[in-house]
């Protein structure tokens, strides 16, 4: 291996297509969809549908193969009479999967590039991308082959469908360990019964009311067990007792729906639980840790989305000012630059800093290496940088920057969410701090 900074040609090629989508199916609708909150971006959805279904097919095949390999390995251990603590190599994947594995080895790198470009188009519209989204990712990560088939096949065919993840509750935002939604097992009917309320669920309405989708809901099976009692459950559209109570009106990303979901004795089949139903404490507690682990892969994605918006704002500001005769200067000493030129340089440098952190976190993810520190660094940095960049863009463009004439004011409103969701800037800074200091959550609160 050697240090390298080069976008692979295969990603470049896909980016060119995504840019066409961004320019033709996103930007022309940006203002209208911001004005008419919750109107659906159908032009974009229909354009993305075929390739999203294709992608889901590939994802499902890969996830099933992985899950099957894991299962076979586990059974081999059992039948050989080995007990815990014996490391088992999964063995090389069958030949027909090799091509899939090669694609997988840059899967996240491809994804962050796509999302950066889509968010450059429009971050609110981007979120309405059909597919399993965060819910689908959770099922792919921990679902059995049967669950993957049952829950995710829908995303490979027919009309567009959405997925979502429901974690946040009115009293539990950053402190995810404090969720109160309960899941009680009813042996009489072999069902889980869900009760509680989830808020801020991105695409919750699209997933449960406007399509035949599903939501992965986090609930506790044992309140006394704390985090160990938290488990993810798949709730499908059409489940009685599931009510979309509210869709939020937001500062930005208005094309995206942010739903409140109430579970009132909502009954779901026993095998809709993801992972082990047993409550385990200590190192065996993979449930909650599993949820936290998914953040390591989703945080670079949010960072990429932030950076896409930031790039849109930077490029537009730079180009608009250039037309006015204020050009970027890359070689001059600082005292020869105007403050506006210095601001532009600072914006560009901040953008690059955040992007490179994101790429490093993503490269580790693709290499299946630990990236908790790196993904939180990228997310914290990107959220903060893009907040600054977009606010600066509004400032630099004067009366027109603040006006709805341009999109920069919208981009500033859109950008801010990236400093909040998937862990606020403060939570991610806290994670970085704990990691570098080697502190537990009790040592550094």
């Amino acid at each position, binding site marked *: *291996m050697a240090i390298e900074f*080069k976008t692979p040609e295969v990603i470049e090629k896909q980016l060119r297509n995504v840019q066409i989508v961004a320019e033709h199916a996103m930007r022309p609708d940006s203002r209208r969809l911001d004005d008419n909150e919750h109107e659906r971006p159908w032009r974009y959805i229909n354009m993305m549908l075929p390739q999203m279904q294709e992608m889901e097919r590939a994802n499902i095949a890969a996830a099933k193969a992985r899950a099957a390999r894991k299962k076979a390995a586990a059974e081999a251990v059992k039948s050989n009479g080995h007990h815990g603590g014996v490391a088992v190599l999964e063995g090389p994947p069958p030949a027909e999967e090799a091509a899939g594995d090669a694609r997988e080895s840059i899967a996240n790198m491809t994804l962050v590039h796509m999302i950066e470009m889509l968010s450059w188009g429009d971050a609110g519209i981007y979120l309405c991308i059909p597919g399993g989204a965060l819910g689908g990712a959770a099922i792919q990560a921990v679902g059995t082959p049967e669950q993957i088939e049952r829950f995710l096949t829908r995303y490979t065919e027919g009309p567009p469908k959405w997925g979502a993840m429901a974690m946040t509750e009115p009293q539990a935002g950053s402190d995810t360990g404090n969720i109160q939604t309960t899941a009680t097992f009813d042996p009489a009917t072999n069902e889980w019964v869900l009760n509680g309320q989830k808020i801020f669920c991105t695409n919750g309405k699209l997933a449960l009311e406007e399509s035949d989708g599903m939501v992965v809901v986090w609930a506790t099976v044992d309140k006394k067990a704390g985090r160990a009692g938290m488990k993810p459950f798949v709730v499908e559209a059409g489940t009685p007792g599931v009510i979309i109570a509210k869709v939020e009106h937001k500062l930005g990303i208005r094309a995206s729906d942010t739903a409140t979901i109430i579970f009132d004795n909502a009954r779901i089949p026993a095998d809709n639980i993801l992972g082990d139903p047993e409550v385990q404490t200590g190192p065996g507690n993979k449930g909650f840790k599993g949820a936290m682990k998914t953040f390591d892969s989703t945080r670079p994605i949010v960072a990429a989305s932030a950076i896409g918006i930031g790039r849109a704002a930077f490029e537009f500001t730079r180009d608009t000012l250039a037309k006015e005769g204020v050009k970027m200067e890359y070689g001059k000493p600082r005292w020869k630059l105007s403050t506006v030129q210095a601001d532009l340089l600072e914006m560009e440098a901040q953008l690059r800093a955040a992007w490179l952190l994101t790429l490093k976190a993503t490269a580790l993810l693709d290499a299946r290496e630990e990236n908790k520190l790196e993904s939180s660094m990228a997310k914290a940095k990107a959220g903060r940088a893009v907040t600054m960049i977009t606010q600066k863009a509004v400032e630099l463009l004067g009366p027109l920057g603040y006006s709805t004439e341009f999109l920069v004011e919208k981009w500033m409103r859109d950008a801010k969410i990236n400093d909040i969701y998937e862990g606020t800037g403060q939570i991610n800074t806290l994670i970085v701090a704990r990691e570098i200091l080697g502190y537990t959550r009790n040592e550094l609160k």
Partner: protein
Amino acid sequence: MYSFDMTSEQKMLVDTVRRYAEKNLRAVYREAEESKHVPEKVVQTGWELGLLPGFIDARYGGYGEYSALTSALYLEEMAWGDLGITLHLLTPNLFAIPIAQFGSDKQKEQFLAMFCGDSFPRATAALVEPVVQFDPAELQTTAVKEGDNFVINGKKTYVPLADKADWFLVYAQENGTTQAFIVPGDAPGVKVGKRVKLMGIQALEMHEVEFENVVVPKANRLGGLKGIRIQKLLTLSRITLAALAVGVARAAYEYALAYAKERVAFGEPIAHRQSIAFMLANMRIEIEATRLMVWEAAYKFDAGEDAAKSALLAKQYADKMVLEVTDGAVQVLGGHGYIREHPVELWLRNGRGFVTMDGAVVA
């Protein structure tokens, strides 16, 4: 692809330099700073690492080729050890690297062998001028062609190891562009003036140098008829300085982190408080981001791509970052950070220098 792993050769080299920095630079940095002198022994052991010959072609006596990336990787380690001593050690590079990058075959043949020997070469460069509005692209020092010679006039400052230099590479304006000229230390009209006293990097001996009607043959123009492109040199300099800045910042961050875990206030280590822990977290984030920007610029330079913009952004980012981090480290140590028993005050003074030295160091 995007890859962030060093080659095994680079890892070995970085490891060697880190050990050298820890054992040698960290052992004497305070004494060197206070006495304003770099001990001979440290210079000799530093030279014996053979870093510069590793960047010089075998045909001129070296054993490698230049890589801005490899350079950036070990410069971080050296600056982590001590910036002042590092700049002393890098002084021959200020002459050798431009010769290797821009020199004619004849110039390379004549001069590069001097950098592949056993003893520390006595060569330096003069770029910075004693004016507030300094711009490497618009120098006040002039070189005027007269017959077969150039006549150089002007005042320079920040010239490292000038009083011992056998050779100077002098940057001057010639017909509106910045060019470089090879000047023997004993040429008539070369006057080494007073030692420059700076806020930081005091171990490094630097002098003002005046060039008064210094005549050199036209063959001494670097790059011959082609000359040099100052922007390319500035690009390299920016990569060099930004890499050094990352090293200084990392030293300060690591020291502050260790201190914050040990220092007890209100009954527990101060690192248990978010106000301290978050400062450290942000330092780590900014150091890592800057390092990646440096690597990217260096990678592009080595790949023959236009690295000017990446290098500029990296340097500009590094200038701010190193100040923020070293200042943060002083702050984490509180009153103790202000006392010269701890190194953080020195790192803050050193960190402040990067923005000033644009163009002055290439390695």
